[in-house]
């Protein structure tokens, strides 16, 4: 999906929207994002009032509740010049869905939704399309092999796909392999995984089979929610393989000064 060209984010301080799941379950992934951005000389701030983008309510049809959460988001990020988030689906929520939740008649929230949509970048997109980085000039401490799972919202909502592969392809000691049906959903789909657990599991089982068949040791993706689904299935089905967030792979290659 082609998005209108946006203002260059180069030189702007980043307000990190870490997402609710990273905050509570994967804080290290959030730290990886911070470390990489700071390594690149980007100034990073964490607006402390942030919570969630509202996607669970939005995808379930609860629009009043979504609007309430969105308005809180506007407040939490009122000073942000640029928002970076390590999630394709949350970025899609901010970029594509916020503007649909309000009409010009709503006044300020409408304007804020437009503003948030304009300044939000997904992590890998920010690095590659935003900062123009193709090669981080980093190397992993030891050789590892990877394959990419394209999380749905990043791929089809934001038109990503290439960014994480480009960064991995030029990462030292990283070998990139194919993953069969890498563009097919893992079966997470938010509350879909709980509302229709058996259908979700059929999709997950297919994903697990493809992951097990891939020569890659580790699967890389850009959304921790999909990662939770896939690792939950890999672990339950006694697979030794795991899915990791792109930021965690890249951070492993940073020089030792990491805090």
């Amino acid at each position: 999906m082609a998005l209108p060209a946006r203002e260059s984010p180069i030189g702007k301080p980043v307000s990190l929207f870490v997402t609710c799941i990273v905050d509570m379950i994967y804080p290290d992934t959030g730290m990886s994002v911070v470390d990489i951005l700071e390594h690149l000389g980007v100034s990073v701030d964490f607006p402390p009032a942030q919570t969630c983008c509202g996607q669970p309510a939005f995808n379930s049809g609860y629009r009043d509740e979504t609007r309430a959460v969105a308005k809180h988001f506007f407040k939490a990020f009122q000073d942000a010049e640029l928002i970076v988030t390590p999630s394709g689906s949350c970025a899609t929520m901010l970029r594509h869905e916020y503007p649909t939740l309000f009409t010009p008649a709503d006044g300020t929230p409408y304007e804020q939704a437009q503003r948030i949509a304009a300044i939000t970048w997904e992590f890998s997109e920010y690095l590659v399309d935003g900062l123009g980085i193709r090669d981080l000039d980093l190397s992993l401490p030891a050789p590892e092999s990877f394959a990419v799972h394209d999380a749905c919202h990043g791929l089809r909502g934001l038109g990503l796909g290439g960014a994480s592969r480009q960064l991995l392809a030029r990462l030292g000691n990283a070998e990139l392999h194919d993953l069969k049906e890498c563009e097919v959903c893992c079966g997470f789909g938010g509350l879909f995984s709980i509302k229709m657990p058996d259908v979700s599991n059929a999709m997950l089982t297919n994903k697990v089979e493809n992951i097990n068949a891939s020569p890659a040791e580790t699967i890389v993706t850009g959304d921790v929610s999909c990662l939770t689904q896939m690792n939950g299935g890999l672990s339950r089905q006694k697979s030794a393989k795991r899915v990791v967030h792109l930021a965690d792979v890249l951070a492993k290659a940073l020089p030792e000064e990491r805090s």
Partner: protein
Amino acid sequence: MTVEIQSNDFIALADIALRNPDLQHAVAAGTRGGYQKRAETMFAHSREHGEHMRQQAAEAKRRALRNLPDLLETAERNLSANGWQVEWAEDAAEANRLVLDIARRHKVQTVAKSKSMLTEELGLNHALEAADLRVVETDLGEYIIQLNDETPSHIVAPVMHKTKAEIRDIFIRELGMEPTDDAEAMVAFARKMLRHDFLNADMGISGGNFLIAETGSVGLVMNEGNGRMCTSMPRVHIALVGIEKIVETVEDYATLTQVLPSSSTGQKLTVYTNILNGPRRADEDDGPQHSYVILVDNGRSQIYGTDYAEALTCIRCGACQNACPVYRSTGGHAYGWVYGGPIGAVLTPLFVGLENAQPLPHASSLCGSCKQVCPVDIDLPRMLLDLRWELVRDGHSKTGWDAAMKAWAIGMTSPRRFALGGATARAGQHIMGEYLPGILGNWTKHRDFPDFAPKPFRRLWKERNNDRA
């Protein structure tokens, strides 16, 4: 004579499909094959060319939809000028009655029918059989379905849910075929049986993939040639066409007859691409003596007035079904009405009422593949989201979810409550262990859940900044 609606049982029907290894095998192979071939054909020149074709097709259908009332009048005029007798049917009962009237008028006993999803909506075969007419489905897939007293599970591959071995057994049981596992021999056998029916049919019934307004023609595409037999051999031909099938020009038809087979079977063109112009002329030796077009509404004009109008541009290619990971897991019957897959999850609530198809808008992970492959770029995920919102708005959602979402929104509108919620979840997980309670148990039924972090990010961030200060 209404078609049974079981869409509220989606989860139970999906469960049956998930436990059927033959269905799992057949649908997995069928959908993936179609998906793969589509990509190869649509992007044979280049991705840009394929995307351009999609946009051109979408524009042709949307333009026709915008001008629908005018184009229908133009079409009626031009169809009549070609010798078609044009009838209008508001609903299934009226459409079926019109077909029966025509059959009686022409003393019809046997009907040869080519594939039509619209007639599935109408329950036409049952209506005709109830009036003691013999109806033979002549599309091979539909023929098998009819022998086995089933409904199509896929828009273009009606018997996708069956394996070759199952089809062999149906032929042996219903038609006394000599046992064989050779697909070609099975097809040859069916062909021979059908040949007899074509020669003896008094009336042919077809659908219409497109109705070309400027020339007053019915556009019909097929691969087996059965549709050409149905529309040219019997004395009488009826084309039942949904009012949304209209296109403005032959040029639009040319666009759409490329994206339709490309998207559904990965063919650049179907084996037979027809433009039917009514009954045989005085100087012609063959063709039907009487040609009818029945323009069927059956709920379409109601959808036309809603935000879901674009769903009426669907050209029934089945690409969204092939691409959908939910459909790939369940097949089409789980959706409980005529149309399965993403387009079915949208159309069914619109046709039969949202209250009668409540699970369908939720039968999607919103992965977006359906929109991506749709040859007319229908925003199916958007429509599913809107239908979910309507379910909540109209009070169809479960009270437990309502309460949970309200509580969740309260938690998410304050960082203090958010942090408290996280701490509670962390403590709760410690107590509950591996298997989560209540509805959350649906997660741990099939997957492990990760541990909540001992310290959330917001705390790590604060500690780090304190260290640095």
